[in-house]
C-alpha cells in the first residue's frame, strides 16, 4: 500500500511546477486573462504540446506519456496553483474523445490536436442553466450540423468542435466565415465560453449509443481533472491566507495568532487535505480500472467543489479589506473555483453519479 507518487510522476509534478512558475506565474496569467484577446499564451501552449503534456493519458506505445490519471492529476494540481488560464483541460478532453472515435478523420484531428497544431473542444451544452434535455436539439442531417451550442470552452478560438447531435457525435471544422460566436463572459477570466450557432458541414464520428459510452468515460476524466485543478486552487489559496495572516498585524499581534482565524485555517487545511486524499485515490482507482473508480471520481468532484467553495471564500474573508480588491489574488482563485465547481459535472451531477454507482 503506497499513497505517494512514484518517482516518475513526482518528477513530472516537480518539473511542471518549475515550468509554470517560470513561464506562467500568476502575475503573467493575470495579464493574459485581463488583456489578451485569446486569454492564454499560445506560445506556452505550443511548448506544452511539444513537451508532451497533451498526451499525458495516452499510452507510451501510442506516443503518449503513459502517466495515467495520477500523472494528469499531479500536473493539473500544479496548474490549479497558478490559476493557469486557457483550454488545457478542454484540449485533453477533446483528445480523449477523439481517441475513442474510429476512422481516419478522427485520427487526423487527434494527431494535429496532440501536436498542438489545432485547438479542438467539445460543444455539448444547449441551455443557459446547464439543465440539459436528455437528447441534444442540435441536428445532424445530410452532413450538415444545425443547432446552437452554449458554454463552448474557448469556442471562439477553436479550429474544430466536437458536437453532440441527435445522431451522435460529429466534428465541425471552423467554417471559412468563422464561428459567429457570442462570448458568454463569466466572472472567471481564466476560462472563455462562447455561444455558437451552427449551420455548417460536419462529419459523424460516433452513433448515439457509442457517443454516450465514450462521453461517459471522458466525463469521468473531466470530473477528476477539475477536482485536481480545484485541489491546486485550494492549496494555493490556503498558502496565500497563511502568509497574509502571519504578516498582517492587528491589536499588536499577527492576526494568524487569533484563535478564530487559526481554527478557520485548520478547517481550510482539513478540506484541502481531504480533497487531496479523495482526488488521488480516485485517480489511482481509474488507472487501476478498479470497480469503484466511477464512484470515487464522483466523490472527488463533489468533495473538491464543496471544499473549494469554503476554502476560496474564507481566503477572501481572512484577507479582510484587501481580499475584495482586484489587485490581490484571492478573487482569481475564488472565481476559478466557481467555474470548476459548476462545469465538468456539477456537484449535483457528481452526487447523482455517486448514488447511481452505489446502486441507490
Amino acid at each position, binding site marked *: 500500500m503506497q499513497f505517494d507518487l512514484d518517482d516518475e510522476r513526482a518528477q513530472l509534478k516537480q518539473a511542471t511546477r518549475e515550468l509554470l512558475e517560470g513561464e506562467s506565474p500568476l502575475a503573467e496569467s493575470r495579464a493574459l486573462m485581463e488583456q489578451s484577446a485569446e486569454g492564454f499564451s499560445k506560445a506556452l501552449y505550443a511548448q506544452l504540446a511539444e513537451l508532451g503534456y497533451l498526451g499525458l493519458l495516452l499510452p507510451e506505445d501510442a506516443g503518449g506519456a503513459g502517466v495515467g490519471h495520477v500523472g494528469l492529476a499531479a500536473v493539473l494540481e500544479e496548474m490549479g496553483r497558478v490559476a493557469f488560464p486557457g483550454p488545457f483541460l478542454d484540449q485533453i478532453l477533446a483528445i480523449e474523445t477523439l481517441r475513442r472515435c474510429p476512422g481516419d478523420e478522427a485520427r487526423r484531428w487527434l494527431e494535429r490536436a496532440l501536436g498542438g497544431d489545432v485547438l479542438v473542444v467539445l460543444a455539448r451544452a444547449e441551455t443557459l*442553466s446547464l*439543465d440539459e434535455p436528455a437528447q441534444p436539439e442540435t441536428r445532424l442531417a445530410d452532413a450538415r450540423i444545425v443547432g446552437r451550442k452554449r458554454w463552448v470552452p474557448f469556442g471562439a478560438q477553436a479550429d474544430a468542435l466536437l458536437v453532440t447531435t441527435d445522431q451522435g457525435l460529429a466534428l465541425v471544422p471552423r467554417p471559412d466565415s468563422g464561428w459567429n460566436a457570442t*462570448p458568454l463572459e*463569466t466572472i472567471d477570466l481564466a476560462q472563455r465560453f462562447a455561444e455558437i450557432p451552427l449551420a455548417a458541414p460536419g462529419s459523424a464520428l460516433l452513433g448515439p449509443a457509442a457517443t454516450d459510452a465514450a462521453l461517459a468515460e471522458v466525463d469521468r476524466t473531466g470530473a477528476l481533472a477539475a477536482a485536481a485543478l480545484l485541489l491546486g486552487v485550494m492549496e494555493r489559496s490556503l498558502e496565500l491566507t497563511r502568509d497574509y495572516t502571519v504578516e498582517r498585524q492587528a491589536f499588536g499581534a499577527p492576526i494568524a495568532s487569533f484563535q478564530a482565524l487559526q481554527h478557520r485555517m485548520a478547517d481550510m487545511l482539513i478540506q484541502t487535505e481531504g480533497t487531496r486524499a479523495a482526488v488521488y485515490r480516485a485517480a489511482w482507482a481509474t488507472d487501476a480500472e478498479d470497480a469503484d473508480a466511477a464512484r470515487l471520481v464522483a466523490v472527488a468532484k463533489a468533495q473538491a467543489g464543496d471544499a473549494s467553495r469554503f476554502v476560496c*471564500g474564507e481566503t477572501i*474573508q481572512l484577507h*479582510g*479589506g484587501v481580499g475584495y480588491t482586484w489587485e490581490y489574488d484571492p478573487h482569481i482563485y475564488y472565481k476559478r473555483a466557481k467555474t470548476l465547481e*459548476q462545469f465538468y459535472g456539477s456537484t449535483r451531477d457528481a452526487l447523482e453519479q455517486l448514488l447511481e454507482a452505489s446502486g441507490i
Partner: protein
Amino acid sequence: MDLRYDESQQAFRAELRAWLADHVTRPWTQELRDPANDADALVELRRDFQRELNDAGFLGLDWPVEWGGRGLGPVEKNIFQEETAWADAPPVPNFLGIGLLGPALIHHGSEEQRRRFIPKMLSAEEIWCQGFSEPGAGSDLAGIRCRAEPDGDDFRIHGQKVWTTFGPWADWIFVLARTDPEDRYGGITFFLVPLHQDGVDMRPLRQITGEAEFGEVFFDGALARRAHVVGKLGEGWQIAMTVLAYERGATALLEPAKNDRYLKDLVTGCRENGTLGRPDVRERIARLLADNEVIRANAYRTLATLAAGRAPGPEASLEKLLWTEHARRQSEAAFDLLGPQAQLATRAHHARPEMDWAYEHLWSRAGTIYSGSSEIQRNIIAKRVLALPTR
C-alpha cells in the same frame, strides 16, 4: 406588541410609493447593464435622481425642517429604504454625506457650516466621501495615523485613507486626523476637506466585481481650514462614534427589501429552468425566505426600540451578521440553482435581466468584511452583549 405602522407612516409610504412609480422610469439594474452608461454617466443618473428626491422632500427625513429635513423618525427612514429598494431606484450618491456628515453638522457643526454644506449635500451639488479608515488600522478608529499639522490658523493634512466609497467622484471628504499624537482618543479632530486641491491624490481602488467605486486617498499637505473643523479640536473620535451610532438601525429594512427582489428572481429562474418543483430546490428557497423574514423580524424589533427613543439592545448587534451571511447564502443558492447563467458578468450576453447575480455574489463576499468584519462583529457581541471575559 404592535407591529403596525401608524396612519401617518402609512400615508408617508403611499406618498413615496406613488412618487417612485412616477420617477423610477427605468430600474437601476437595467441602467447598470446598459453599455451606453459608463461609470460617469451612472454617477450623473444617481445625482439627478438624488436631486429629484430632494426636491420632493424625501431626503434628510429625520432632520429638522430648518435644515431641509422633514422632522420624521426612524420608521419613516426605513420606509424610504424599503420602498426605494423594492422600486430598484438609483441609489443616492451622497448617502455617506447625508447618513453621517449631515447628522454630524446638525448636532456638532456651526451654524455657518450647516448653511454652507447642507443644501449642496442634499442637492447632490457636492458629493461627499468619508475619510475614517486607514490601511493597517482595520476597524480600530482610535489607531488612525493621518495627521493634521497647524499652518497659521489652518491645518495641513498628511497621511492616507482607504476604502473611501465613492471617492473617485467626490468633491469633499470628511476626515478624522490626528491633532495630538499623544492622546489616543482625545487627539483626533473632525475635518471637512475639499478634494480638488493640491496635496490630494485620489486613486480608484478596483474591487473584485471589476468596478472601482472605492478610492484610496493620499494627503500630502492638503489644506484644511480651521473654519471647517466640526466641533472642537480633539473631539473627532467622539463625534465619529456618536454619528456612527445614528446609523444603527437606520437601514434595518433595506436589506430584507432588496432580498425580496433577489428571491423573487431566484424563484422566477427556477420556474423557467423547470426545477421549481424539485424538493431540494424548494427547501433551499424556503430556507432563504425564512432567513429573510428573520432578518425583517429582527429589524422590526430594532426599529420599535429606536422609535421608542431607546438605544437598541442585542438585536442591533445581530443586524449586520444576519444580513451579510444571508446575502452570501442567497447568492450561492443562485449560482447553484440557476447554473452558470448566474455567473455571467454584468454586461455579458444572456445575463439575467432583472438581477445581476454575479455582481451580487462577488459583492456578498465583501459584505462580511467591510464596516467591521464578521469576526469583529462576533468579538463585539461576545464582549458587549454576552459580557464574556477577555484574556
